[in-house]
């Protein structure tokens, strides 16, 4: 499996779309908006709040992008069948996809944090840094599971727009680009059940020194389990031998 994870990670790191949308875009967007909002490095300051929401956006985009289209594509292109005639099992394939997707979430989180530190002088206690990175990382499981589900159910040309809409929808409804508090109340109600909303909220709570709110952790965990089950079922269906 380490060899499989390695090539899966390599192929994404060499993919221009991944590098632009997932690695460069969140950092650029962070630097741009932080200037618009005028910085501020205390816990509630724009530099810190935006650092969390842009890391969250980067992680969300990374987990969707590294799963949906590559997975849909390799089912259609025959690469999956090539793997199915090796000793690799279907279970190893899906676990590898999930693990790789979570690995590929890290560059976006780390780069946005690095930009915040280097360009804005943001500084947190070591415990908060560790908590933030860990939570942003592990909290991306529901998105990777969602990505694998979509990639299992749709052919690549349909999967591509669905991945985009899904990513943007989760970003907007999660308040990653625009505070949820400013939304109309109906939309706000929807936002409050979204995994992306609770995901960023965990990050914001940690940087503000409040730790992880249990309700957030529970909601994200529930989404992770639910989407994980759906992803496994969809993956089974996609790899079933007729």
């Amino acid at each position, binding site marked *: 499996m380490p*060899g*499989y994870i*390695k*090539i899966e990670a*390599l*192929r*994404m790191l*060499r*993919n221009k779309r991944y590098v632009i949308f997932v690695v460069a875009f969140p950092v650029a967007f962070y630097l741009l908006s932080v200037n618009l909002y005028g910085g501020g490095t205390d816990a509630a300051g724009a530099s810190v709040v935006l650092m969390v929401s842009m890391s969250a956006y980067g992680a969300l985009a990374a987990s969707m992008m590294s799963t949906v289209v590559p997975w849909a594509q*390799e089912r259609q*292109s*025959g*690469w999956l*069948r*090539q793997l*199915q*005639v*090796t*000793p*690799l*099992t279907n279970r190893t394939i899906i676990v590898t996809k999930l693990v790789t997707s979570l690995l590929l979430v890290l560059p976006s989180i780390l780069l946005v944090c690095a930009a915040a530190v280097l360009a804005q002088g943001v500084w947190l206690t070591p415990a908060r840094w560790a908590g933030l990175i860990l939570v942003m990382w592990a909290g991306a499981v529901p998105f990777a599971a969602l990505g694998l589900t979509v990639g299992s159910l749709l052919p690549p040309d349909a999967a591509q727009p669905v991945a985009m809409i899904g990513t943007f929808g989760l970003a907007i409804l999660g308040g990653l680009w625009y505070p949820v508090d400013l939304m109309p109340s109906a939309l706000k109600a929807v936002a409050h059940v979204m995994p992306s909303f609770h995901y960023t909220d965990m990050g914001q709570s940690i940087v503000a020194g409040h730790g992880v709110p249990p309700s957030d952790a529970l909601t994200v965990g529930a989404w992770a389990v639910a989407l994980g089950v759906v992803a496994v079922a969809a993956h089974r269906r996609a790899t079933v*031998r*007729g």
Partner: protein
Amino acid sequence: MNAIAFTDVSKSYGNVLAVDGLDLAVEAGRTVALLGPNGAGKSTSINMLLGLLRPTHGRIEVLGTSPDEAVARGEVGAMMQSGELIPELTVRELVDFVRRLYPRPLGLDEILQMADLTGLVKRRAGKLSGGQAQRVRFALSIAGAPKLLVLDEPTAAMDVESRLRFWAGMRAYAAGGRTVLFATHYLEEADENSDRVVVVARGRVVADGTAAQIKAGAGGQTVRFTLDGQAAAGLDALPGVTAVEVEEGTATLRTADPDATVAALYRGTSLRVRDLRITGAALEDAFLALTQES
């Protein structure tokens, strides 16, 4: 032991019967061609052999076990009819990744040599020509040193030169006592690269044997010579002969075994044989005859 055994295997897709009661046993160590026109059921049979498809009916054994188990043990390698590589990865990365999935793989250099890829190791798969990509897919199929190698129309998209080198690589691989099954609709490929040809049409085996036997079996070859005024009696009793015709002083014998017929003609009769000619039904004719029947 048989490397492959199909017992009364059928597969239907909805109401299309793609494979219809196929029986086929392949001894370990042989190189067998599955020859048939498009739509004959070659790919369906191969995909069932690889565990990618389930038969609707019948049983398939691979190396004494089920297809899934043989694949899981790393005893099978395959090149499917179509399939793309991961464009961002290099030839070396792809081949090395796949070989490491197997318990006792070939060495990387050995694989690259057999698949004629030594000059392309650093090339990304997305930048390969069609023929080069086929060679990489061949490399992936042999990477794990499988006992059974299965190739579904492997030379599609290759030019003449690549084809020759491809078959040389396949023979080098088969020479290690391994079993190879390849599908093709090219008669010459079947003839030149296998020691047994199984002709399939409409999901059934319609002929099975060496290329020579198949030519003969399809009503075969003719032995012709000038008889002049000599008596034609007894010619129909010569070994292999299925029909005799005499016309304008020329005898035409249809035979399933021209070697035996000619030998007996010289040794077993007192005829003066002149202008002897043997014309082969080409494998092509045999193939057309077999696959268009009924």
